């Protein structure tokens, strides 16, 4: 069972072929943190949307700083412009403030970066569970996110750690209960 899908740079590039880049991405000054406060606000807002959209499109739930610096997200080769390390941290700090990002360590080398909050994921999963009449049944965590049934759903392929946090929010609402059975991690929905 492979939980963490290793995304090679090649796969990433291919995935970006049909990505809808916003006009700012092709605007050279977008890669310079703007001195004017109002303009900077607009710029950071655009960066946050872009980063989250990128994560969603590539189904990534985290970010590694070293990789990020050379990723197509922060480095537009055609334009010959890239966000400096400082600038990247500025954008990520903004995402942290908005609740989308959590640093995994003090050195700020890698983080969890999700385009939906755990509660939002929980809602989406529960809605699907109800629509499939899966309440009062049990399934393994793997089945839930990697089974055939959930193919095409937004949470398909969801990172396990994120999934667990999402299910915990449902636990708090008594809509689910995490459990172990047969040695596998599972969940029961109510």
């Amino acid at each position, binding site marked *: 069972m492979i939980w963490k899908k290793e995304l090679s740079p090649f796969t990433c590039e291919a995935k970006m072929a049909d990505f809808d880049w916003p006009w700012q991405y092709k605007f050279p000054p977008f890669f310079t943190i703007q001195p*004017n406060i109002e303009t900077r606000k607009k710029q950071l807002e655009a960066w946050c949307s872009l980063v989250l959209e990128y994560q969603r499109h590539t189904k990534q739930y985290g970010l590694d700083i070293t990789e990020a610096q050379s990723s197509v997200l922060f480095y537009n080769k055609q334009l010959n412009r890239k966000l400096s390390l400082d600038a990247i941290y500025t954008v990520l700090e903004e995402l942290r403030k908005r609740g989308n990002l959590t640093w995994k360590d003090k050195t700020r080398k890698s983080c969890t970066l999700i385009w939906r909050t755990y509660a939002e994921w929980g809602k989406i999963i529960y809605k699907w569970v109800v629509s499939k009449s899966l309440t009062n049944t049990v399934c393994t965590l793997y089945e839930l996110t990697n089974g055939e049934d959930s193919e095409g759903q937004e949470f398909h392929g969801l990172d396990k750690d994120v999934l667990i946090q999402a299910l915990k929010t449902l636990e708090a609402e008594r809509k689910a209960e995490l459990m172990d059975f047969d040695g596998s991690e599972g969940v029961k929905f109510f």
Partner: protein
Amino acid sequence: MSRRPAGIAAIKNKSLAQAKYKDKGSAIADSQFAQMGKQMEMFKGNLEDFATKHRDDIRKDPEFRLQFQEMCASIGVDPLASSKGFWAEMLGVGDFYYELGIQIVEVCMATSKRNGGLISIEELRRKVEASRGRNSQAISIDDLLRAIKKLKILGNGFSVHKVGGSFLVQSVPGELTLDHTVVLQQAQEKGNVTKSDLVNLLSWEEERARRALDFMVKEGLAWVDHQSGNEHSFWFPSLIPDFSNSLN
């Protein structure tokens, strides 16, 4: 030699003559008036015919609309002078420009986030036409300029700057001096400009160039680019055509 009859008889004759003249005068005036009345009726009828026949044309065809405006100007009529009255009611001309004015404001408000409140008139035209829908009338640059003129009267803070061969519409209050419009003109080719460009191509002093560029950055009209090589460059979103269909 007979003198004019004096006395009461004379006076009576004079008033009689006067009365007759007066009658004649009134009669003439009356008939003239009646004639004028008939002419007015005819004129009004013709005008109504014209209106009915061409109301659609005026709404649909920018060329026709322009010619209509020029005709009105030549006879000293401003069909947009008020929203009431013959022209407005019969031709709906006032409504047309009023609606257009509202659409212009909407586009400017929606795009000001991107361009700082300064939009090229071509982009404005494209977006207004798009927002009017596929089957509606074509809009010309002349239409936009007239509608904006009306908006200015309402005090909407709109101003139009001539830049190069075209116009930039400013929808946020703020002073764009001639220096600023010249900078925009200079930047039109590549969408950006450096301080050296202004110094070398316009023979400006460095201080003047710096001041103009700083102002435009402060107003949110220009973004700075620190990765443009030897020198920082300044870019203007309003000069970069936005071909997206969204109003963002």
